[in-house]
């Protein structure tokens, strides 16, 4: 172990030669784990790939350490390194020391396989992303617990009692959960169960790798607040790895920002958010869509993260950094102490605040062209697409084999009685939890999903009538089909993996303009590729999808939709799968192209910050959906700043802010799990979770326009009705209302709020 006082001065900063720089200055008083000079390398055809580059970090006892980085920055590798679980053929070097209470020291990398097995789970345990794939679908949750306990020779009874305690700490009914099979639990419950499972052997350190990435915002926030309680109750040290900076900002005690396989800035959460000194941290903070920053302040980070085989010489961030100078290009910066426990690996940490201003201030970021366009939607009077009382119901086939023929199929009410108009140059963003029917409604808008009831009209022509009758329609179906396009959520499957970009983009042109000269076709594709920033376009056109990054794939999908020259594009979570720093860029591009091509967007998102950015910048609307119903719709800024419906308020709560003062508090709702859409609650569907629910809500359903004061902002809640409505006289719904929780998942926040 080296001494604490070295490398505090720039003089000891070494250049990246051989084993690299000495960056051992990040220390804490009472570390539970110490990582020194950990590197992970993979031998590849193209050279040695360094996916963890000489990383040193301490984890303090009983702290929550947030590790933030974009995908491919090496954060998962760091988690694997902590447990000496780097997959073959990766080679881990360096030191990882675990210090249980007392003076004991365990050299994790020197353990025998048997000792390592004991260390994992009993001392250090890990929660992975994607709970579904972490469970064995063929055995019950109880069997998972028992298997774990047995494998580590713990006392079964005591351990199971502990498991029950953990499950109830996580607001689940232990008996019900233990007897379930994994698929019987919702995603949020699975993730909570996984956390309980990882804690059942009472480890001291819990490593969580994107534990909430697959969940809804609401569930994410709920789990985070539970984590804080757990951490206090069981004296855990938690390493929380995520790409979502705002998410951990309120939770973590310390934050470490990773870029290009090393930590560029480490410090107490408040310091790091309030006074970030590394240019990357600052740019990242600006790039993350959130609810507070003025829209004009948000900027994508230029350039791309480096390739692990070919990390730039000197400071790895210099190609993207506005402050980079000769020193940065030549030398790898050591950590500079901003304050005793806040370190930043940048030569220019003192100047970064000036160069990259975070809060308001007109001065432009260095290197940026400063062009900031407001994309005002000039909406038409006549709607392009108009939905009237649209219902979409799905019959859920019961898995009873032959006998199911005699059963009445369960009907899922994916969309229930929604009317919505989309105008020219309009932006409508649909927000809601997963399973609320956003995608189904979106597909109904573009005529990809036939409604069970109600009409969908394109410029006055009923789409499905046009399709069925073929002739006789005012606007032929072919034309309608062409005018309504879609961009899918998953960049991985939005392009045919077997076709080159060029072939994928030629398909719509060949279909709709068969007479077009092949050279013109080629030229048009190339110029569009260039326009969206993929240059050289000739090179990109000849690539297969696997040679593109996620952002590039989404751009190609966007071009493909635009080549049809559509009137409405449905963008189904089009940016959700992208890295945070890319989201703003892609959304900007979409809006810029809207200006050029005169299209409208129906943008679907589960994330209120993205919705705010996208709709807000275009002067569009946000519609909030809950269980197949539109509960509130209005101009973006109004929905964000002045939400009326209790559910919108909940969503607003769940969207993490960069505000460090705000701790994760209990949510303003009574149950965290969504009722079953097969059997939605009577009356107002939100009444089972609504903190404002009264008797009237259980009987009668509020409507969107019924109480209108003439503005665009409409809310389906009795609280918006005037005082003569019976809501104001009826009794609040009691907490233990049997009806409210009958179909509900077992989890209830009731006790938490009391």
């Amino acid at each position, binding site marked *: 172990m080296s001494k604490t006082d070295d490398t505090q001065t720039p003089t000891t900063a070494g250049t990246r030669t051989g084993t690299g720089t000495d960056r051992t200055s990040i220390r804490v008083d009472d570390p539970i784990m110490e990582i020194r000079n950990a590197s992970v390398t993979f031998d590849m055809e*193209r050279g040695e790939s360094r996916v963890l580059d000489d990383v040193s970090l301490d984890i303090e006892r009983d702290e929550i350490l947030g590790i933030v980085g974009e995908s491919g920055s090496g*954060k998962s590798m760091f988690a694997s390194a902590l447990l000496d679980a780097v997959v073959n053929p990766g080679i881990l070097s360096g030191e990882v020391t675990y210090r249980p209470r007392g003076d004991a020291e365990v050299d994790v990398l020197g353990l025998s396989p048997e000792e390592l097995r004991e260390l994992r789970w009993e001392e250090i345990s890990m929660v992975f992303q994607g709970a579904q794939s972490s469970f064995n679908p063929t055995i019950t949750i109880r069997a998972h617990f028992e298997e774990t306990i047995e494998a580590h020779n713990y006392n079964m009874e005591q351990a199971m009692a502990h498991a029950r305690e953990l499950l109830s700490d996580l607001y689940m009914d232990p008996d019900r959960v233990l007897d379930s099979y994994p698929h019987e639990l919702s995603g949020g419950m699975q993730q909570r169960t996984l956390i309980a499972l990882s804690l059942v052997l009472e480890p001291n350190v819990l490593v969580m790798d994107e534990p909430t990435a697959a969940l809804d915002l609401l569930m994410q926030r709920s789990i985070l607040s539970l984590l804080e309680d757990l951490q206090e109750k069981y004296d855990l040290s938690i390493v929380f790895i995520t790409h979502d900076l705002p998410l951990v900002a309120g939770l973590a005690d310390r934050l470490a920002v990773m870029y290009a396989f090393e930590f560029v800035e480490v410090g107490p959460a408040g310091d790091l958010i309030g006074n970030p000194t590394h240019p990357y941290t600052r740019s990242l903070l600006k790039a993350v869509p959130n609810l507070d920053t003025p829209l004009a302040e948000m900027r994508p980070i230029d350039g791309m993260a480096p390739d*692990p085989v070919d990390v730039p010489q000197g400071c790895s961030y210099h190609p993207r950094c506005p402050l980079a100078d000769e020193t940065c290009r030549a030398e790898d910066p050591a950590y500079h102490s901003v304050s005793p426990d806040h370190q930043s690996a940048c030569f220019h940490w003192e100047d970064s605040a000036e160069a990259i201003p975070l809060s308001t201030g007109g001065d432009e970021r260095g290197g940026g062209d400063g062009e900031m366009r407001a994309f005002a939607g000039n909406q038409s009077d006549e709607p392009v697409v108009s939905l009237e009382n649209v219902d979409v119901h799905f019959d859920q086939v019961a898995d009873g084999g032959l006998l199911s023929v005699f059963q009445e199929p369960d009907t899922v009410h994916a969309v229930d009685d929604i009317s919505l108009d989309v105008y020219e140059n309009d932006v409508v963003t649909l927000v809601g939890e997963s399973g609320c029917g956003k995608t189904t409604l979106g597909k109904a808008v573009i005529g990809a999903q036939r409604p069970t009831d109600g009409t969908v009209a394109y410029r006055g022509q009923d789409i499905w009538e046009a399709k069925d009758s073929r002739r006789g329609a005012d606007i032929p179906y072919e034309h309608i089909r062409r005018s309504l396009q879609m961009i899918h959520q998953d960049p991985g*499957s939005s392009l045919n993996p077997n076709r080159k970009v060029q072939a*994928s983009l030629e398909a719509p042109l060949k279909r709709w303009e068969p007479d*077009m*000269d092949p050279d013109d076709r080629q030229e048009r594709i190339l*110029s569009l590729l260039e326009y969206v920033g993929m240059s050289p376009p000739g090179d990109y056109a000849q690539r297969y999808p*696997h*040679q593109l990054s996620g952002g590039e794939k989404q751009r190609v999908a966007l071009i493909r939709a635009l080549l049809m020259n559509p009137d409405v594009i449905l963008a189904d979570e089009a940016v959700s799968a992208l890295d945070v720093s890319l989201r703003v860029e892609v959304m900007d591009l979409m809006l810029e192209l809207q200006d050029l091509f005169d299209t409208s967007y129906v943008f679907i998102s589960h994330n209120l910050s993205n919705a705010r950015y996208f709709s807000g910048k275009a002067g569009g609307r946000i519609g909030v959906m809950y269980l197949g119903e539109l509960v509130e719709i209005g101009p973006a800024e109004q929905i964000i700043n002045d939400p009326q419906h209790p559910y919108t308020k909940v969503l607003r709560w769940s969207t993490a802010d960069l505000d460090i003062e705000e701790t994760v508090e209990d949510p303003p709702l009574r149950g965290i799990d969504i009722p079953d859409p097969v059997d939605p609650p009577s009356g107002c569907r939100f009444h089972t979770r609504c903190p404002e629910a009264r008797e009237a809500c259980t009987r009668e359903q509020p409507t969107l326009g019924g109480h209108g004061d003439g503005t665009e902002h409409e809310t389906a809640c009795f609280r918006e009705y005037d005082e003569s409505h019976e809501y104001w006289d009826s009794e609040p719904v009691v907490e233990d209302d049997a009806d409210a929780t009958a179909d509900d998942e077992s989890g209830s926040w009731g006790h938490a709020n009391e």
Partner: protein
Amino acid sequence: MGTVKRTEETDDRPPASLEETIADGGTIAGDEASADTPFGTVSSGTMSRRDRYEMLVNEWVVAPFKILWSDWRARVGSLIILAYVLMGTVGVRVVDPPRVGEGDRLVSPFEDLSHPLGTDNMGNDIFAQIVHATPPMLEMIVAGAVFTTVMAVVVGTLSGYKGGRTDQLLMTFNDILMTIPGLPLVIVIAVILEPRSPWLVGVIITVNAWAGLARAIRSQVLTLREESYVEASRLMGISTPQIVMKDIMPGLMPYILVNFVNSARSVIFASVGLYFLGILPFTELNWGVMMNLSYETGGALYTWETAHWLLAPMITIVILSFGLILFSQGTDRVFNPRVRARHTSAADPEEGDDDMSGEVATHIRG
């Protein structure tokens, strides 16, 4: 691609037809897309027909061949298959057909240069028999493999992609075929039809062998059709046959090819087996017939003197089957876009292989 000549956007050509179509539709007023937007660009350079054909050949012939050649299994496999094809085409012209009594009876192999593999009990040259049995054998293999694959692909994709009533009908028929035991069915058909043409024999042997493959392909289509890019194609109004050809089939091709080669192997075994059992009428020379005769009249199983008569056709079959297996293992690489990407760029001298950067990195990033 280096063959594409293009210049920067020019204003001197009329705007591309897209704006005209917009005007036709009458939905968007004005011609807002002027020449400086990406939509207005027109090419002024031309790519000759020849260039385009060259590109196609490069992509569909040269590149797949290179990929195949880069894999040793496919290389060995295709050489073996090529040798058999040569034997069936050139060989039959070079080697005289076997005649009774052209040599002594039961000459051992490698003894007499004029009878390299020896002779049978009638003095027929065994090598000549093997060579002259090759063309009907190859015809049978091709007929059987093509029939199986085409039936399975057509039924499987149609029923998987269309779904609903079509799916139900086709799958019911398919399931019936699957439940009929294959061998007795083939025997009955063979007895009734007494097929003589090798093409017909090939089809009869595989008469219900395609049903299993069709089901497997259907289930693959069921997953592929839910992919976003297939939905995108549907929304673009692209016709169903086009979607099946361009979006569905390429994903199935590795599977189909491997099964094509496997069914070729099963045709060999089945036909040889049936000839050996004497169920199919002997009209022409066949490896199975040779084995049958060596066993029935030569007692090749019991004496070393006639063993070569049995072993020669047997080894011929084993080598061909081995070649087909190697070939099929090599072919699945041809349709792998990752491998393709490397080879199409390598086939083009003007393009470096620098476009690979970043791709491999994604494998290892968590």
